[in-house]
C-alpha cells in the first residue's frame, strides 16, 4: 500500500491563461516551497506522470491537446485544475474562442481556487490529488480490475458516444 504516495509525478499544461498560475506552479519547485522534498517531479512527459496540472481555460485549439495528454497518461491518474480559468474560463469566459473550463473536455478531480492560485493552495491541491490517487489504486486492486481493461472499456464507451 501507499505505493503512489511518496512519488507523485506531475505534468503541467498551460491552457488559455494569463500565465499567472503557471508562474505559481513553477514557484512550487523553487527553494522556498521545494515540492521535490515530497518526491514530486515535474516530468513534462504524460507517460511518466500521475497528476495532470492544468492552468487556464480550454479553447478550440488546445481541446485536442488536453484530450491527448489525458489519454496518454497511464492509470491511475488524477486531474487538478488550477485557478479560476481552469474552472470555467475565468476572466476570458466571454471570449469567442473559449469553450469553458477544463471539465468541458476531460474529467477533473480537484479544483484549486485563486487568481492567480497561490503556491500554498497548489501544494494543497497536489496533496489531495495524491490521496485520491491512492484511493483510485485501492479501488482497482480491490475489485481486481486491470488497468488495461479499464482503459479499454473507457475507450470503447468513448467510441460509442462519438458514433
Amino acid at each position, binding site marked *: 500500500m501507499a*505505493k503512489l504516495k511518496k*512519488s507523485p509525478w506531475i505534468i503541467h499544461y498551460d491552457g488559455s491563461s494569463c500565465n499567472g498560475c503557471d508562474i505559481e506552479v513553477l514557484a512550487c519547485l523553487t527553494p522556498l516551497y521545494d515540492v*521535490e522534498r515530497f*518526491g514530486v517531479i515535474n516530468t*513534462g512527459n504524460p507517460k511518466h506522470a500521475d497528476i495532470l496540472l492544468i492552468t487556464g481555460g480550454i479553447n478550440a485549439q488546445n481541446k485536442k491537446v488536453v484530450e491527448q495528454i489525458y489519454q496518454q497518461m497511464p492509470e491511475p491518474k488524477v486531474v487538478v485544475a488550477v485557478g479560476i480559468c481552469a474552472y470555467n474560463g475565468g476572466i476570458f469566459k466571454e471570449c469567442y474562442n473559449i469553450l469553458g473550463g477544463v471539465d468541458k473536455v476531460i474529467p477533473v478531480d480537484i479544483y484549486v481556487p485563486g487568481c492567480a492560485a497561490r503556491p500554498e493552495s497548489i501544494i494543497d491541491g497536489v496533496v489531495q490529488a495524491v490521496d485520491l490517487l491512492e484511493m483510485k*489504486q485501492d479501488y482497482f486492486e480491490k475489485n481486481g480490475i486491470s488497468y*488495461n481493461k479499464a482503459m479499454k472499456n473507457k475507450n470503447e464507451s468513448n467510441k460509442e458516444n462519438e458514433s
Partner: protein
Amino acid sequence: MLEVILRGLVFIIAAPFVGGLLSGIDRKITARMQGRRGPSIFQSFYDVRKLLSKQVLIVNSLQHMLVWGFLIFVVFTGVLFFAGEDILLVIFSLTTAVMFMVMASYSVNSPFSAMGSQRELIQMMSYEPMLLISAVGFYMATGTFNIKGIMQANIPAIVYLPGVFAGFLYILTVKLGKSPFDLSNSHHAHQEMVKGITTEMSGSVFALIEIAHWYENVFLLGIVGLFIVSNQWWSWIIAGIVILITFFLEILIDNTSARVKWDVMLKTVWAITLVVGGINIFILDIIR
C-alpha cells in the same frame, strides 16, 4: 568457478541497493547545492516501487523485449566485471546493452524517442574510443586484460595511466548522463525532446530502465576503482575514497554546467581521448 558465481550473485543482489542509494544521494546533494531540502535518499526506491504498480502502456511488444535485453546485458556486464573476467569482454557487453536500449527506443514511431536514440548513438561514438583505450592501457600497465590480474598488480594502474584515468573521468560524465553531456536522456525532462530515449516507456518498463541504470552506475564506478586497486589491502580504501570524490565531482559538474550541442561533445571528447589518452599510451609504450 564457485567464487566467480558467488561474486556474480553478490553483484546481482547488492548492486540495485547501492545504485538506488547513490541515485538518492545524488538527488539530495543536488538539492542542497541548489539551496533546497531535497527528497529522501530512498526516493529512487519509492519511484521504482510506484512505477511497478502503474499501468504499462505498451507501444509494441518488441520494445518490451528489447528493454529486458538492455537490463539483462547490463547485469551481465556487471557480473563479468565483478567476477574478474576479461575487461575487453566487459566493454563489448556494455556496448551490446546500450544497443538494445537504442533499438528499444527506435522501435516506436515517436520523433522524441527517435531523436533520443540518435543522440545516444552519437554519445556511443564519442565515448567508445576512450573505453577501448582504457582497456589497452590496463593491458600495457599490468600485462593482462583479466580484471583479477589487474587487481593483483604490484603498482596500481593509475601510476602508469594518469592520462587515461583523466580521459575516463571525462567520458564518465557522458555515461552517467550528467550535464553538460545529458543529450539523449536527462534526469529532468522539459527539454526540446521531452524525455528523449525513455519518452515512450511507462510503468514497469520504465522501472526496468531505472534499475538497469543503477546496475550500470555501480559498474562504471567500479571501473574508476579498478584504476586504484593493487595487491595491497589499503588500496581498496583509497579506491573507495576516489570513487566517492569522483561521484561528488560528477554531481558538481552536473549542477554547474548547461547542456552542450552534440558536436561540441563529440569534438571535446575525441580531443581529450586523443590528447590525454593517446599521449599516455604513447609514452607508456616508449618507457616500457
